[in-house]
C-alpha cells in the first residue's frame, strides 16, 4: 500500500498532491469539499437577496456576476441556475464527498487499526475523480447559457431540452459529465471503505467493538455502492435523450414552435431512477453525521453511548428502509395511488429507528459529565435539528398530507433542517473533534463557541420560518413571491430569512479563519486531547505512513468504556486489556442471533 510512497516523502508533489496516504486524502477531500460548500453557501446568499428583496437592485452583484444580473437584479434564469447548483453542490460535493470523503478516509484506518486503506491507489483515484468532477461543475458556471437550471433533481424534459431553459444546453451536459465523474469517485471510495472495514481490522477489533463512526461509514458506503450506479444509469439515459435522439424520458412534446419527434418515453421513469438514489442519498449524508455525533457525544459526556447495539440496529434499519421509500418524493406525480400508499407505510417506518437514535442520544447525556467543546456543541445542535426536521418528515411522508405541502417551502424547511443542518453540524462537529488528528494542531475554542452560537441561531432563523411559508402555500423555486396577492403579507418573513442567511454565512468566517489560522499557528496538539478511547489517538501527532511506528496495537474492549466503575480515570482506551473480573461490554446488550 505505501510501498510507492515511502521514498517520496520529501517530494512535494507526491506528499501533497498525488498522495496515496489516507490521512492526506482525507485532508484533500476536506479542503475541496469545504471550498465547494463555500461556493454553494455564497450562491444561496445571492438568491436569498432576490427572495428577501425581490426586484431590488444590488449594484455590487453587477461587479461579480456579469450578465447573470441586470441592473443589480438577478435574472430569473440565473436564479434557477443558482438554486440548482446550490443544491447539487451542497448535497453531493459538500455533504457526500466532503463529509464521507473526509471522515471515512481519516477514521476508518485509524479507528480500526489499519496501516492504510485496502487500496491506496484507488483511494487517490477517488479523490482525483472528485477533484475533476468539482472542476467540471464549476466550469459549467461559465459556459454559454449558464449552468444546469432544472433544479438539483434535473427532471427531464426541462433538463433534456435546451429550448426549455438556457441552462439545459452546454451547462447541463457538463452537469452530467461532472456527476458521472462524481459517481466514479464515490464508488472507488465506497468499495475501498467496505473492503477495509471487513478485512483490515486489527487484532481484537470485532465488529461489535467498532466505534459507531465506523459502523455509520460502512453502511453509508454500502448505500452508496447500491444506489449511485442507479443515478449513473439515470443520467446516462438522459444523456442519450439529449445527445442521440432517444426518448427514454420524452414523449409528446411541443416546444420552441414545433412538435418534437419523440414518442413513448416517460419523465416518471427518470423520477423513479433518480429517487432510487435520491432517497438513500439523504442517509448517505445523515448516517456519517450521526456516526460522528455518537462518538463526540459519548466522548464528551464521559459516558458510553447508550444502547450501542440498538444504535447499530437502527443504522441498519434506516439503511434498509431507505431503499424502499423513494416514492414518497412522487406522491403527486401521477404514480398509481396504491404505490403512494405503500410508500407512505415504508416512509413512516423510518421514524422508528430515528426515534430510537434520538432517545439514545438523550439517555447518553443523562447523568453524563458533559464537556462543552465546540464539537460537543455542534453535536447537541445536531440532535436538536434532527428532532426538529425529523418530526416534520412525519407530515411530508404521509401521502394525504403531502398533497398540499409537496414542493412548497415546508419541504425546503424540512430537508434543510433534517439533512442540511444535521449533515453540516455533524461535519463541523467532526472537524472540531478530529482537527488535531488531521493537522496536528488545535482549533481555538472561543472562536468555536462564537461560530456555534451564531450558526445555531442563524440556522433556525433561516429555516424555521420557511414552514410558515409552506403552510401558506408558497411553492419552492419561485424567483419572487410578488405575483400572487395571497403572499403579499409574507414579505417581511422573506426579508427576515434573508437577513439570517447573511448572518449565518458570515458566521462561517469564524470557522474559516479558525481553520486556516490554526493549521499554521495553532498550538500543537497533545496525544489525546479529548481523553478519548478510540485507536486514532494512539498514533503519533505528526503523520507517518502506516500510522503506527511499531506494531499495530491490539484491541481488548469496545470504544465506550467511559467512567467505568472501578476505573481510576474516566476513560479506558481500547488498547487496555480487560481486567479478569471486568465485563466485556461489547458482548452486552441486545443479543444478536447466532452469537
Amino acid at each position, binding site marked *: 500500500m505505501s510501498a510507492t510512497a515511502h521514498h517520496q516523502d520529501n517530494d512535494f508533489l507526491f506528499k501533497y498532491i498525488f498522495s496515496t496516504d489516507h490521512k492526506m486524502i482525507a485532508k484533500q477531500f476536506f479542503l475541496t469539499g469545504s471550498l465547494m460548500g463555500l461556493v454553494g453557501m455564497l450562491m444561496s446568499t445571492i438568491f436569498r437577496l432576490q427572495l428577501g428583496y425581490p426586484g431590488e437592485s444590488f449594484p455590487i452583484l453587477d461587479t461579480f456576476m456579469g450578465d447573470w444580473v441586470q441592473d443589480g437584479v438577478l*435574472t430569473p434564469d440565473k436564479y434557477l441556475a443558482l438554486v440548482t447548483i446550490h443544491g447539487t453542490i451542497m448535497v453531493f460535493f459538500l455533504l457526500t464527498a466532503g463529509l464521507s470523503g473526509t471522515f471515512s478516509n481519516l477514521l476508518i484506518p485509524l479507528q480500526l487499526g489499519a496501516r492504510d486503506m485496502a487500496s491506496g491507489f484507488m483511494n487517490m483515484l477517488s479523490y482525483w475523480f472528485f477533484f475533476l468532477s468539482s472542476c467540471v461543475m464549476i466550469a459549467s458556471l461559465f459556459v454559454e447559457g449558464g449552468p444546469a437550471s432544472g433544479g438539483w433533481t434535473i427532471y427531464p424534459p426541462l433538463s433534456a431540452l435546451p429550448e426549455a431553459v438556457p441552462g439545459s444546453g452546454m451547462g447541463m451536459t457538463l452537469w452530467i459529465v461532472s456527476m458521472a465523474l462524481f459517481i466514479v469517485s464515490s464508488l472507488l471510495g465506497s468499495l475501498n471503505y467496505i473492503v477495509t472495514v471487513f478485512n483490515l481490522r486489527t487484532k481484537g477489533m470485532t465488529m461489535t467493538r467498532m466505534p459507531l463512526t465506523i459502523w455509520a461509514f460502512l453502511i453509508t458506503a454500502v448505500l452508496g455502492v447500491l444506489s449511485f450506479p442507479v443515478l449513473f444509469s439515470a443520467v446516462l439515459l438522459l444523456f442519450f435523450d439529449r445527445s442521440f435522439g432517444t426518448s427514454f424520458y420524452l414523449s409528446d412534446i411541443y416546444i420552441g414552435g414545433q412538435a418534437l419527434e419523440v414518442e413513448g418515453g*416517460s419523465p416518471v421513469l427518470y423520477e423513479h431512477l433518480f429517487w432510487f438514489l435520491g432517497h438513500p442519498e439523504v442517509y448517505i449524508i445523515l448516517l456519517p453525521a450521526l456516526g460522528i455525533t455518537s462518538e463526540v457525544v459519548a466522548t464528551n459526556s464521559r459516558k458510553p453511548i447508550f444502547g450501542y447495539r440498538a444504535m447499530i440496529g437502527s443504522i441498519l434499519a434506516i439503511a434498509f428502509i431507505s431503499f424502499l421509500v423513494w416514492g414518497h418524493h412522487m406522491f403527486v406525480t401521477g404514480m398509481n395511488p396504491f404505490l403512494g400508499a405503500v410508500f*407512505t407505510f415504508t416512509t413512516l417506518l423510518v421514524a422508528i429507528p430515528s426515534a430510537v437514535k434520538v432517545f439514545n442520544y438523550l439517555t447518553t447525556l443523562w447523568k453524563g459529565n*458533559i464537556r462543552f467543546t465546540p464539537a460537543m456543541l455542534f453535536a447537541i445542535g445536531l440532535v436538536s435539528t434532527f428532532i426538529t426536521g425529523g418530526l416534520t418528515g412525519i407530515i411530508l411522508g404521509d401521502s394525504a398530507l403531502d398533497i398540499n405541502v409537496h*414542493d412548497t417551502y415546508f419541504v425546503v424547511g424540512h430537508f434543510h433542517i433534517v439533512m442540511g443542518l444535521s449533515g453540516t453540524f455533524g461535519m463541523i462537529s467532526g472537524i472540531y473533534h478530529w482537527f488535531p488528528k488531521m493537522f496536528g494542531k488545535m482549533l*481555538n475554542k472561543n472562536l468555536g463557541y462564537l461560530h456555534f452560537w451564531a450558526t445555531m441561531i442563524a440556522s433556525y432563523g433561516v429555516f424555521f420560518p420557511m414552514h410558515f411559508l409552506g403552510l*401558506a402555500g408558497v411553492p419552492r423555486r419561485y424567483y419572487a413571491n410578488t405575483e400572487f396577492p395571497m403572499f403579499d403579507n409574507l414579505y417581511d418573513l422573506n426579508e427576515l430569512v434573508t437577513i439570517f442567511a447573511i448572518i449565518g454565512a458570515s458566521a462561517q468566517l469564524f470557522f474559516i479563519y479558525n481553520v486556516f489560522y490554526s493549521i499554521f499557528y*495553532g498550538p500543537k496538539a497533545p496525544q489525546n486531547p479529548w481523553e478519548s478511547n478510540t485507536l486514532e489517538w494512539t498514533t503519533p501527532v505528526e503523520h507517518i505512513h502506516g500510522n503506527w511506528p511499531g506494531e499495530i496495537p491490539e484491541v481488548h474492549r469496545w470504544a465506550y468504556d467511559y467512567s467505568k466503575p472501578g476505573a481510576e480515570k474516566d476513560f479506558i482506551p481500547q488498547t487496555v486489556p480487560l481486567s479478569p473480573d471486568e465485563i466485556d461490554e461489547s458482548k452486552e446488550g441486545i443479543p444478536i442471533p447466532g452469537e
Partner: protein
Amino acid sequence: MTELLILLAVLVGLIALGKLIRVMELASKLKGENSWEATDKDHKYQARLMPIFLLAYFAFIIWQIVEWGDEVLPVSASEHGVVIDNLMETTWIIIIPVFIVTHILLFYFAWKYAYNKNRKATFFAHNNKLELLWTAIPALVLLILILYGLSIWNNVMEPLTAEDEPLEIELYARQFDWTARYPGEDKQFGEASVRLIEGINMLGLDSADQNAWDDKYVKAEFVLPVDQPVQFYFRAQDVIHSAYMPHFRAQMNCVPGMTTRFNFKPTKTTEQMREITGNPEFEYYLMCNKICGAAHYNMKMVIKVVAETEYNNWIAEQKPFLAVEGLEEKASSDAPATDSTQTKIEGEELSAQL
C-alpha cells in the same frame, strides 16, 4: 469603488479578528490555560446558554405563530380538504409534544450535567427494556398515523365515477400559462395531439374529432360551480408542471406524454371565502409548483367558485372550439370522405346551437 471599500473592510475585519485571537491566546496562556481546552468557566457559561437557547427557540417559534399564523392557508374550500386538515391537526397534536419534550430533555440534560471534575458520569450502557419501550411506543403511534393517513389517501385518490356526475375539466400546462378545457354539451373531450398544435389551436385539438368541436377552453381564469364534484385531467405540452390549488388542498403534476387525474368538490364560493378571510379581494389560485423555467413563478390562473346558475350562465357565454377556430367551414370541407355527410350534419347542428 464601493466594492473596493467593502473588500477592504472585510480584510481589516479579518485582521482584527486575528489579532483578537492572538490576544485571547496570550491571555489564556498567562492564566496557565490553553486556547483549546474548555475550562470550568467555559463549562459553566456554555451550560447556562443551553436553557437560555431553549427558551429563546421556543419564544421565537411562538413569536412566529403570532406574527405569521394568520398567513397560513384559510379553512379548506374543498370537501376532502377538511378531512386532510383534520389529519394535519392530529399529526401536529402528536408531533408538537414530542418536539417540546425531547427539546426540554436535550437542553435540560446539557445544562444539568455540565462538567464537574469532582463528579463521575454514571456508567449506563444498556437497558433492553428501555430500548424496547421507545421502539414500541413510536411504532404504535406511527401505526395509528399510517392507518389514519392511508384511509384518507385512498378516499382522496379514488377516481369519480359516472354516478357522482362530475364536472370534467382538463388543465393544460405549458411554458408559462394554463388553459382550462371544458368538454362542452356532449361531455366528451375531443382528441388532441402535440402534432396538431398550430397557431391559435394551442391545445392541438383534433378538428376531425367531433367531440372536440364543442370543447370550450379558457385562459387566465376558470370557473367552478360550488358543491359539484370536479374530475380534473392534467396534461402538459413541454416540460413537467404541477397544478397546485392550495386552497382546495389539491395538487397533481402535469407530465408530457401522459394524463394525470385528481378530483375534489369545492364547497365554498369565492364570495364566501372573501367573507371568511375578511379579504374583499381574495381569489383562489391555480399555480405551477414544478420548476418549469424562467417564468415558473408567474404561471397562474384564477379559480372562481360560484353558484351553479352563475356557472351555467358563464359556461354558455364561452365560445366552443369550433367557433374560436373558425372551423365550421373547414370541418365540412376537410372531413374524411367516408363520413362527410354525418360530419356536415352535426356541424350544422352545432352551428345552429350557437
